[in-house]
């Protein structure tokens, strides 16, 4: 597509770096040679498949329904992943599904509804992917942290309940703490961007030959998208979890201990 296209030969040559990793792991006797080969091969196969599929979705004349299907399956898969990574969280999968859907409506609604980006497969799929991918990490951190607070601070929460405070008020200080923990890394990385690291979307655009200033404009849109989506998913998760952990008559349910 441009003079930065690495081609099949280039791809094969870049495989030398996998070889370097492999040799180093053997020299250090890390016992992970097999995992390295499997990981490199999986990345290659998975991304090739995604690349081909994406080609079909983002083509100019392909119907928008494929884009929507792609977005929906990303949200479902991400919710399933949250459920797997936060086993001790009650109703994690369902709550993640609701959270991601809410975040998609809010963030994609702003970016596409207000005309920041044109609603096409070529924009919706990558932006949706960034949104879900980043929100997933934040959601797992927030959900686990919220449940840990409820479990570890049961004494204080029940002391507030025993004073006749409703469950949302009894839990509010702990919820705030958990949400702060989940959001602060996102805010920190938003601050450090451009100084400490060059973000992926921008790097990719520059490699593909796009003017850096234009790449930066797109990247900023992406970053605000990520920030908004993490805030939305964690907030919805917080509301849902508070409902799941407390009974309607303001009792804190028993919570399972953390595995692993």
């Amino acid at each position, binding site marked *: 597509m441009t003079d930065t296209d690495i081609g099949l030969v280039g791809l094969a040559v870049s495989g030398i770096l996998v070889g370097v990793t492999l040799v180093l792991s053997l020299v250090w006797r890390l016992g992970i040679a097999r995992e390295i080969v499997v990981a490199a091969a999986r990345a290659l196969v998975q991304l090739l498949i995604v690349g081909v599929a994406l080609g079909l979705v983002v083509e100019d004349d392909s119907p928008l329904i494929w884009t929507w299907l792609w977005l929906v399956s990303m949200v479902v898969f991400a919710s399933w992943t949250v459920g797997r990574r936060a086993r001790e969280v009650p109703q994690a999968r369902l709550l993640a599904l609701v959270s991601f859907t809410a975040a998609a409506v809010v963030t994609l609604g702003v970016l596409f509804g207000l005309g920041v980006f044109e609603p096409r497969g070529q924009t919706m799929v990558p932006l949706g992917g960034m949104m879900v991918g980043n929100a997933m990490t934040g959601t797992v951190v927030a959900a686990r942290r919220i449940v840990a607070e409820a479990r570890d601070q049961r*004494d*204080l929460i*029940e002391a507030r309940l025993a004073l006749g*405070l409703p469950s949302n008020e009894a839990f509010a200080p702990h919820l705030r703490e958990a949400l702060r923990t989940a959001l602060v890394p996102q805010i920190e990385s938003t601050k450090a961007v451009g100084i400490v690291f060059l973000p992926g979307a921008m790097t990719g655009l520059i490699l593909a030959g796009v003017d850096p200033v234009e790449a930066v404009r797109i990247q900023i849109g992406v970053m605000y998208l990520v920030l908004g989506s993490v805030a939305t998913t964690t907030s919805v998760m917080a509301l849902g979890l508070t409902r799941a952990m407390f009974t309607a*008559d*303001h*009792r804190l349910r028993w919570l399972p201990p953390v595995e692993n």
Partner: protein
Amino acid sequence: MGASDQRRLDNVSVDISASGITVLAGPSGAGKSTLLRLLNRLDVPDQGSVRWQGSDLDELDVLAHRRQVGMVFQKPTAVPGTVADNLRLAAPAMDDDAVVELLDTVALDAGFLNRNALELSGGERQRVCLARTLATNPVVVLADEPTSSLDPDATAIIEASVQRLADPNGRHRVGWVWVSHDAEQTERLASRVIALDGGRISSRGLDD
């Protein structure tokens, strides 16, 4: 009050007076704390019912009920903030004079008002928690071994406050349901004793 439950408590049927000091005695694991948690509705029974002044707790507004039937825990549960912040958690509209007056009932002077609650001694923190529970103006306070981790001096101060508050001729008149595994403390405090063992009532005594 009456309660029955099938897990930690088995076939317990008991009326607890809302005046004076009722001591729930018995070894650990006897079901004393479980009974208190049922009375404050932090737990609900699998079977049977808990009644307050004749009404099933299922039918009462749980938040209003918890303010009438307050609870003090074994471990002091002061929240971050000043002593006044802690009391206002229970009664946000309370002014400084009212806070000082309540602190006085648990033998803490006005100097404690703006002290950091988490920097107080265990005994002082437990007294703050007691005052905080009193701030909702309860009819009865459920006390789950609140002095078990305190030294004898701190225990004596709390016991004196509780006896003053339980005095039927006193200004506050709060009833107490006090869990204790300490026979001497039971003797010092109890208007009546209900002994639990293995989730069942093993004996009753005192009063009149």
